[in-house]
Every structure is written in structure tokens, then in C-alpha cells.
């Protein structure tokens, strides 16, 4: 009897601890979102989207930073995702279980969780040092390197989900694999691949470390890809650590914008994936 009580108590103790752990995790997410909203909303105004980042003590907005982030993220995706999609296609369709593919899969998963500051140093060494100055191109390349593993992984997974019968039908009609891939597999896996792109955009648009010494920052409006370019994460970093109240407010507003964007992207990626699963299931 006593032993049974002890087991029961132990059971409820550990189960309550797991509940506490879950509540703590959820509380952290809530606390972060609450802080962002309460600090960020007050700083949000029309100025944010119409004016440039101000000098110390001055008033201004984040227009150049938002523009820079958009341009570099877009360029990063445009450069990185075709490589990721093609490499994923190779793994799913041509290489399948060769030793090379196993190695590439392994390296890709390692790159997926590699520290992004290392990628920043890498691009600094091979681009910034060669060109002799910081530039938006270097920033975009660093982001592209980060986008490749994400798109590769999802592309391979999604191509593997396409029913084998579709591939066989296409082959039976005499189509070469390239035709099958472009006309049958890609359309069938389209929403899955788009999910991968959304996840990649979400991943790279909040990255700070790889931009610190590639794109650097720029206080002014600049569309020159060959020059340093402002971007939200680095502006948030610099402004949040500054002693000026105006700058800190701008940092909070920027943080809110970036987080909302990324959460929306991740949620839409998830919804898309759920729809895809439902479609496949039926």
C-alpha cells in the first residue's frame, strides 16, 4: 500500500513538473510577444515607413533599413533557392542512395544548423576582402548561403512525397526524366516547394550576424548594390544598444515589424503544408 502511494506520488510529481515546463515555455513566448507589442506599437507611426534612419538624437524612420532588408532577402532567395531546389532534385531523382548523395544530405543538415556568424566570416573572406569594401551584394550572398540548406531539404522531402505512379506514367509516355521533373513532379510538389521558400525567407530575413560584416549598415538611402546598405537587423542591433531614447524606440518598432513578418511567414508555411497533407491524405 505504502509503495503504491509512493509510486503514485512520484508519478504525479513528474507529470506536474512536465506541465510546469510546458507552461514556462509558453510563458516565454507570451512574454517576448508582449514586450515587443507594448514597446513596439508606440513607436510605430507613418514616419517609420517614410523617413530614413536618423542621426543620434534626431527623429526619423526605418525606410532605408526596410528597403535594404527587402532587397537583400529577395536577392538572397533569388540566388540561393534555385541552387537549393536543383540540389534537392538531384538527391530525390538522380542520386537517391549513392554514397555522394548520403554525404551531401549529411553536410546539408550540418549547414542547416551551423552558426550563421561563420557564414558571415566566410563571405567576408571571399567577397568583402576581394572587393575591398562592404556591400549589399556580399550581404545577399551570405543570406543565399543560409537559404540553400532550407530549400534543399524541403524540396527533396516534397519530391519524395509525389506518388511514384505519376513518375512512372510520365516515363511510360516516353518522357525523359528532365521532362518528368519539370512537367509532372514540380507542379505536383509546388505548394511544398513554396513552403520551403517561405521558411527560407523567414530564416534569412531575421539574420543579423552574417550581415554585420558583409552589408554593414548605411545611415542614408542607398540603392547601390555595390555599397554598404542599411538593413533592419543591424539597425536594431546598433540602435537598441545606443543610449538615445529615439533610437531605442526605433529599434523596438523594427523588432516588432521583423517578428510579425517572420511569424506570419512561418504560419503561412505551416498552413500551406497542412493543406498539402490534407490533399494527399484524401
Amino acid at each position, binding site marked *: 500500500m505504502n509503495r503504491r502511494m509512493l509510486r503514485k506520488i512520484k508519478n504525479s510529481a513528474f507529470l506536474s513538473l512536465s506541465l510546469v515546463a510546458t507552461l514556462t515555455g509558453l510563458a516565454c*513566448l507570451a512574454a517576448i510577444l508582449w514586450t515587443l507589442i507594448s514597446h513596439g506599437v508606440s513607436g510605430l507611426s507613418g514616419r517609420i515607413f517614410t523617413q530614413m534612419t536618423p542621426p543620434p538624437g534626431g527623429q526619423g524612420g526605418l525606410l532605408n533599413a526596410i528597403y535594404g532588408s527587402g532587397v537583400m532577402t529577395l536577392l538572397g532567395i533569388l540566388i540561393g533557392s534555385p541552387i537549393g531546389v536543383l540540389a534537392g532534385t538531384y538527391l530525390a531523382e538522380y542520386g537517391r542512395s549513392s554514397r555522394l548523395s548520403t554525404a551531401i544530405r549529411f553536410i546539408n543538415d550540418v*549547414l542547416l544548423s551551423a552558426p550563421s556568424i561563420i557564414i558571415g566570416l566566410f563571405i567576408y573572406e571571399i567577397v568583402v576582402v576581394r572587393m575591398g569594401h562592404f556591400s549589399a551584394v556580399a550581404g545577399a550572398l551570405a543570406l543565399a548561403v543560409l537559404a540553400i540548406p532550407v530549400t534543399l531539404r524541403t524540396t527533396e522531402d516534397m519530391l519524395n512525397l509525389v506518388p511514384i505512379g505519376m513518375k512512372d506514367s510520365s516515363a511510360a509516355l516516353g518522357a525523359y526524366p528532365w521532362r518528368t521533373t519539370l512537367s509532372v513532379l514540380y507542379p505536383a510538389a509546388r505548394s511544398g516547394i513554396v513552403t520551403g521558400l517561405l521558411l527560407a525567407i523567414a530564416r534569412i530575413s531575421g539574420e543579423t550576424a552574417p550581415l554585420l560584416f558583409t552589408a554593414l549598415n548605411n545611415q542614408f538611402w542607398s540603392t547601390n548594390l555595390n555599397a554598404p546598405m542599411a538593413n533592419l537587423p543591424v539597425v536594431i542591433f546598433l540602435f537598441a544598444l545606443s543610449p538615445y531614447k529615439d533610437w531605442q524606440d526605433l529599434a523596438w518598432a523594427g523588432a516588432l515589424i521583423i517578428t510579425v513578418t517572420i511569424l506570419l511567414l512561418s504560419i503561412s508555411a505551416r498552413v500551406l503544408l497542412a493543406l498539402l497533407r490534407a490533399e494527399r491524405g484524401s
Partner: protein
Amino acid sequence: MAIIDPGHAAKQLIYERIFRSATFIAAIFVLLILGGVAVSLLRGAWPALSHFGFSFVAREIWNPVTDQFGALAPIYGTVMTSLIAMLLAVPAGFGIALFLTELCPPLLKRPIGVAVELLAAVPSIIFGIWGLFVLAPVLQRHVQPWLIRNLGDFPAIGHLFKGPPYGIGILTAGVVLAIMVLPFIAATMRDVFDTVPPMLKESGYGLGATTWEVIWNVVVPHSRVGIVGGIMLGLGRALGETMAVTFVIGNAHRISSSLLAPGTTISSAIANEFTEAVGDLYTSSLISLGLLLFLITFTVIALAQAMLRRLERRSGAVA
């Protein structure tokens, strides 16, 4: 009726070759990136490594004025912050995974799972700014004074909790890191727990075991490899995390006996100083730090991946 046009077939074959080569080159590109990272870091680090030799990793000094650099303080900071993060995040992640797989009402399973995954999507700079403006003051006012009062005079570990409560420092960085890696650990463990065959668990319950006994004696032994893999994946993240740490570490190049004191980590030293570094030796020393981080994290992540892969193969064989 079939008309075979030899020209058409030849053209198809050419397209096939082009497409195949394009995908092959893209796949090889992934290997080239890793190789490129290794080679370029080694080249950038060479001046400092050849100048200081092995002593680079064994010296605490970091003086840009006299051009004397050693990596011991950043290494210590990286290891300590990650250790604190793991001590906090592993039990919590285990608890969340356990809750999601065994306890959670089915209706709440997805929303809570998604919330945990969204926490993983929040960019690290957000954790940094939150840690500096919200978490650090709370720790400084409430938690650290308590630690100093109650643990400061404890034998053996007392020195870890001595000194003034700065707010920012090794301990705060560890706590922020713990919150950051928590979703990764929880999500991996949940996926691993889900691979345990229901039959095994039901056998445990059939013998009269409590939920906890089934978890500890059936689920955990069965998913041991995956649990360790998930923990190491989280560790890899914690070791290399940059922005969240840079905000709250205090950036002091010294090793303090107290966890409450400011310190530095490999990644935050690079983030803070790289653009301001003047002189080849200074820049090269920072790149050497990057090379060290590369070696450490890639080893940890590769081991984690190898473990998770082994588990995947095994559960694939069972299914």
C-alpha cells in the same frame, strides 16, 4: 503510327544531360560551401595561428593595443553559457516533449506544438533585445541577489555566485540561450518519443506501470539515441548563437570566478569587434576564433546528426 524523329530524340537527350548536370552541380555546390568555409577560415586565421602558435587557445590575454591575443576567455564563456543553457533547457525540453506526447489533450496538442515551433522561428536578435531590457533587470533585482544570499557561501560552488549582481553576464546569457534552444530540444525529443511503438508503451501499462514509469523505463530507453541527438543539436545551436548572447554577455575579455560577472563568448567577440578591428593580427585573431567555433560546432552538430540518422534507420527498419 508512332513517328520516331531521330532529331527529336537527340535533342531530348541533350536537354536531359543539361538538366542532370545542373542538378549535379548544385548538389556538389553544397559540399563546396563547407569546403570553402573551412579553407577561407583557415587562410584568414593563419597569420594569428602561426604568430601565437598553440598558446593562442591557452592564454587569457586580449590586448589590441599591444597586439597580444589569446582565446581562453571566449572559449570559457562559450562553454559556460552553453553549459548553463543545457542545464536549464534539457529538463524543460524533456518535460515539454513528455507533456506533448503523453499528457496533452488531443485538442491542445497541435496549438501548443505550433507555439513551441514559433518560438524557434523568432530571430535571435529579438531574444537579445528582450534579454537586455526585460530579463536582465528581472534577474538583477530578484534572482541574482537571492543566489548571492543563499548560495554565495556554499562550499565548492559558492564562488560561482559571488560579487555584485550586474544583471548582464555569463548567467544571464546562459538563461537567454536556454530559452532559445528550448524549442529545438523539445521538438526533436517530441519527434523521437513519437517513434516509440505504441505496443511497447501499452505493454508497460498492461503490467500496471504508472505513466511516469512507462516513460522512464520504456520510452526513454527506447529513444535514448534520439534524445542525446536532440540535446547535441541544441548544444550546437547554443555554442554558435551570436546576437542573443552579444546583447547580454557584457563583453569583458576575462575569466571571472563568478557566473554573475560579465564575460565574452567566441561569437559575441567576433560580432562586437570584427568591424572595428584594426591591424592584420587583430582581424586574424578574430577569424581564428571563428575557426575554433567552426571546428567545435561542426563536430557537435555532425555527431548529433549521425545519432539522429541512426535512430531514423532503426525506426525505419521496425516499421
